[in-house]
């Protein structure tokens, strides 16, 4: 379960499709412009959500600090209408999901709770 409906699992299961779409995906990620502001994809997730707020609290201290630093740097860039020098752009290998796994873990917890709340007992005798 993820935060939004995704075709990614479908694509990832088929190597030929993945190889075909990978260059397109890379082009899209670079073209969307957040890397030029030094951000990662997970920095763009909306914070105004109970589960995201909780996931942010579960971040390790170093990760949380780095995230705030990236956001402030990006806001500064945005205010001055500039982009970062090229050596400070987020490299594709740095652009890893750090918040999404935590959100998914929280969603799984929530789903398990709902499942257990609505469970019916079937007696086997």
């Amino acid at each position, binding site marked *: 379960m993820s935060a939004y409906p995704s075709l990614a699992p479908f694509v990832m299961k088929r190597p030929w499709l993945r190889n075909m779409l990978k260059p397109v995906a890379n082009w899209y990620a670079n073209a969307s412009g957040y890397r030029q502001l030094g951000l990662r994809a997970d920095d763009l997730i909306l914070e105004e959500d109970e589960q995201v707020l909780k996931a942010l*609290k579960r971040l390790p201290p170093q990760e949380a600090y780095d995230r705030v630093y990236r956001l402030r740097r990006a806001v500064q860039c945005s205010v001055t209408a500039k982009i970062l020098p090229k050596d400070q752009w987020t490299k594709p290998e740095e652009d890893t999901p750090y918040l999404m796994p935590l959100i998914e873990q929280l969603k799984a917890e929530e789903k398990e709770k709902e499942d257990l709340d609505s469970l019916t007992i079937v007696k086997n005798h």
Partner: protein
Amino acid sequence: MISRAALSRGAQLAARRQASTKLGQRGYAAAASSAPSAFTYETTDVAGVKTATRDSHGPTTKLAVVAKAGTRYQPAPGLTVGLEEFAFKNTQKRSALRLQREAELLGGQLVAYHTREALVLEARFLREDIPYFTELLAEAVSQTKYTTYEYQEDVERVIHIKQAKLQADAAALALDSAHSGYLDENSIASFSEAVYAKSNIALVGDGATTSALSKWTEQFFKSVPASPSGSMTLNSKATTYYGGEQRISHTGGNSVVMAFPGSSFGKFKPEIAVLASLLGGQSSIKWAPGFTLLSKAAASSPGATATATNLAYSDAGLLTIQVTGSASAVRAASQEAVKALKSVAEGGVSKEDLTKAVARAKFDALVSSESGVSTILAAGSGIVHTGKPFQIAETAKGIEGVSAENLKTAAKALLEGKASVAAVGDLHALPYAEELGLTV
């Protein structure tokens, strides 16, 4: 003994029945032990796990993992409480929520608690669910994840609440303190590696057959390591008794504890058990102070209660007299209590009081081994410390042989040795050890 004619008809019948059951019991009581067979634990070694079981053929079972990890053994303060709070949290296989809900569906209860010597993870459930709960306990012991967020969201919060509760309780403050300065999920996880090893735990079942427990233990406790691993080692120094005096100011109440070296599980002293019940303090009948010396001592200062208890540990014991109430009443009652102890040391115990105290001590020993928490704790704690369970019921025979002379020498030895005195509350009014006539 009171003469038979003085008793009512009901009491006479009860006395007669008691005598006849004694005759009947001789047939099926185990030859080696003086206690009834349903009271004693049978020990076995299942694939390296020491287990003890007794079966009273009831519909429910209590199964507990008793680990040698009480506050006495923790290398840094707070670790035992932390590990206790991490019991039944997320494991590699299941989430904490699922564990709780599944246990609920089966009508079971999961409890974790600690004493100064042992950490106990206990499950209480219907007899037929033993496979499920054995697996659950093994999982809690060997596969808990000790995650950071559970520590921050659940464990730490509860520890702070517990600390605050303890600080507010004047009587408990004299006995314990926990501090979380050395505590995080990593230190708790490495403490758990030192604690949850086959050599350091015992599995105790009350109301389970040995064969069932062995079968499931063998299957599920495989994943528990045989010996402690990790960087942490338990602080397993032998207990030494020092004596001393401690005074803590507190606005929430007044309490004085006078303690003397008492009777331990390892070395049971029947005269201390009898002395504790002779001093007593809790009346066993309504609207009257009863025969015990402390309740008589406390009766003259209204508002104060005084009780004597023997706190038994594996290699040491503490006979405590605890007085609580308003400051001036506590002061007067503690002085009376010491006077009462001195009168015992001078041989001022009437024969009737001695008979009552012996009967009471014997009853306490037997009733506490009948059911409830203390038997599992005593049995498990005994196994992890000495290799065999402490059978509280077996001490009953020793208690019968205590004479007035024994009591006199025991009380004298206590008064001549060093006492430990703790006062919590209004220190202006509460007495010093010297004022009470005790040496510290």
